[in-house]
């Protein structure tokens, strides 16, 4: 960044100072977490020499790895479906006018506003009723559906922001240049909102991997995701095993972020 808008002098120094503070605030706990996941002492926060045994424990604990695999499957399914539906909802709200649009608009954002617990109770009631009528058991499908339900809102918020910033004359220009409606979307709209879609996907995946409250309500017996399982472990007492689990989850989300940045960088701009 150069030019007149570049901060100078005191402003520059204090801005720099504040950024450092923010970084420390963010990353100091993570650093502590990582360090103590290698600590050879059952008490969290007491250093007992270097060991990787907690990671080995994690890998051998079939309940933990099973929960991890559940979490990943749910996250992938919830992300894929909520990205498609959320993007479609964003397009509908931003590009078309239809009856009841304002109501749809307000309802779409409900999951963002209402507390997790309320949402969880609602979903639990709903699934209990639905289970009576259609006879399915709670577990993978109910968790995935619940995650999709709240992820759609977040995806559509992010995608809509991107769409709102896009000149709608561009689609008209594409159609004037012999693109069909679908081609105009595919070669003009989609590439332009792709950063929003990827951002929304990342957000959805993170929210899904993170969720405890709603998942705990709608899960079935003997079926758990990683955060819910970790949460139940904590009640029995915290060991560095939980630190190790957390580090693994942290690394996984960092890989996700890196991937999303990379795909944006590599994304080709060429039509057809």
């Amino acid at each position: 960044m150069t030019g007149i808008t570049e901060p100078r002098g005191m402003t520059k120094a204090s801005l720099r100072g504040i950024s450092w503070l923010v970084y420390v605030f963010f990353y100091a706990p993570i650093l502590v977490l990582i360090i103590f996941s290698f600590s050879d002492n059952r008490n969290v926060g007491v250093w007992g020499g270097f060991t990787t045994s907690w990671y080995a424990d994690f890998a051998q604990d079939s309940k933990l790895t099973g929960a991890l695999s559940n979490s990943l499957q749910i996250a992938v399914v919830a992300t894929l479906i909520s990205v498609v539906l959320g993007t479609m909802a964003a397009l509908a709200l931003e590009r078309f006018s239809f009856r009841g649009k304002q109501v749809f608009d307000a309802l779409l954002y409900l999951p963002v506003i209402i507390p997790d617990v309320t949402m969880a109770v609602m979903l639990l009631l709903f699934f209990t009723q639905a289970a009576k009528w259609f006879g399915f058991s709670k577990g993978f499908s109910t968790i995935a559906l619940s995650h999709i339900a709240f992820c759609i809102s977040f995806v559509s918020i992010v995608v809509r922001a991107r769409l709102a910033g896009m000149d709608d004359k561009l689609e008209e220009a594409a159609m004037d240049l012999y693109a069909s409606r679908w081609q105009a979307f595919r070669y003009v709209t989609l590439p332009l909102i792709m950063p929003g879609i990827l951002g929304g996907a990342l957000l959805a995946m993170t929210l899904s991997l993170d969720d405890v409250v709603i998942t705990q309500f709608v899960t079935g017996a003997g079926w758990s995701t990683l955060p819910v399982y970790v949460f139940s472990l904590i009640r029995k007492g915290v060991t560095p095993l939980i630190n190790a689990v957390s580090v693994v989850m942290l690394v996984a989300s960092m890989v996700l972020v890196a991937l999303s940045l990379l795909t944006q960088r590599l994304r080709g701009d060429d039509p057809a």
Partner: protein
Amino acid sequence: MGETRDAHETTTAADAVAISGVTKRFGDVVAVDNIDLNIADGEFFAMLGPSGCGKTTTLRMIAGLEFPTQGSLKIFGDEVGTLPPNKRPVNTVFQNYALFPHMNVLDNVSFGLRMQNVGRSEAADRARALIKLVQLEGMERRKPSQLSGGQQQRVALARALVNKPKVLLLDEPLGALDLKLRQEMQNELKSLQRELGVSFVFVTHDQEEALTMSDRIAVMEDGRLLQVGSAEDLYERPANRFVADFIGQTNLVDATVADSDTIVLGNGSKVRATTSLGSGSKVAMSLRPEAISIGPRGSAPADHSEESLDGIVSSSTYLGHAVDYRVSVDWIDLEVRAGAIGAQQRFSPGDEVSLWWDRAANWVVAD
């Protein structure tokens, strides 16, 4: 207001665009009100009018971005009423260019060809030829954000023309450019149009631009088409008061028709003027400032006695090539523009003067 001229031209198959009885409503707003308009093949046609008069809406209907509420719209004889834009042999240069920001210049220009399933290498070759035509060689790999306004304008032009449209639609394409670049682009556009022989339909609200560039001009107001004609038609023979006032500067003097040869001005003085309107009709006499001669009181030539008025100079402004006078003629003020070079005499405020004009110079318009 007055009747629309050329309202019912006969449609021929060769007309690039034939619009008849077209109305466009947006809810309660009538954006375009029952217009008839024929644009010939190879014509440089301008649409002129104040903001909100329906120029863009008309253009968008030709492009297929908007469908008429009523009426018929033909392109080279084919009814295109509700055909989508991608099925019409026309292309548009949008007001703010609407270049695809995520594509480089070459991809922008070849987009239309690619969408028509022209092979990648042929599309690139044809796009390069157009990029050369608009003098942007070497910029193929740049993104639109890395170009100046004038360069973006050329990309928009190339992107439309590469498809060899039968009609090119331009919506205030020069509106965003500064004066100098604007004049340059005016010349380039005009010569490009001559070279290609394609009809250009050019929307502008700059009347000078319309007058200098176009073969014919349509003047619109409030969704209605007031007059279609050449620059001379509009300037010398405006169809009504609005056109007379809108095109160039003029003095509009309220009058009443006495007979086919005489009108009576507001103060009762009789002036010779030809009109086809019936006696008693309220009219306005349009007198261009440069068509009025000025001289000392009583100096009006005898043969102009019925085309003259006496007045007092109230202000004079020296313009270099001319002098602008404001002359009070007991009940109105008239603008008079006299050549400054070789002028017999200059007048100052307070001078008593006579004004006169050639009989052909005044033009009576319906009120």
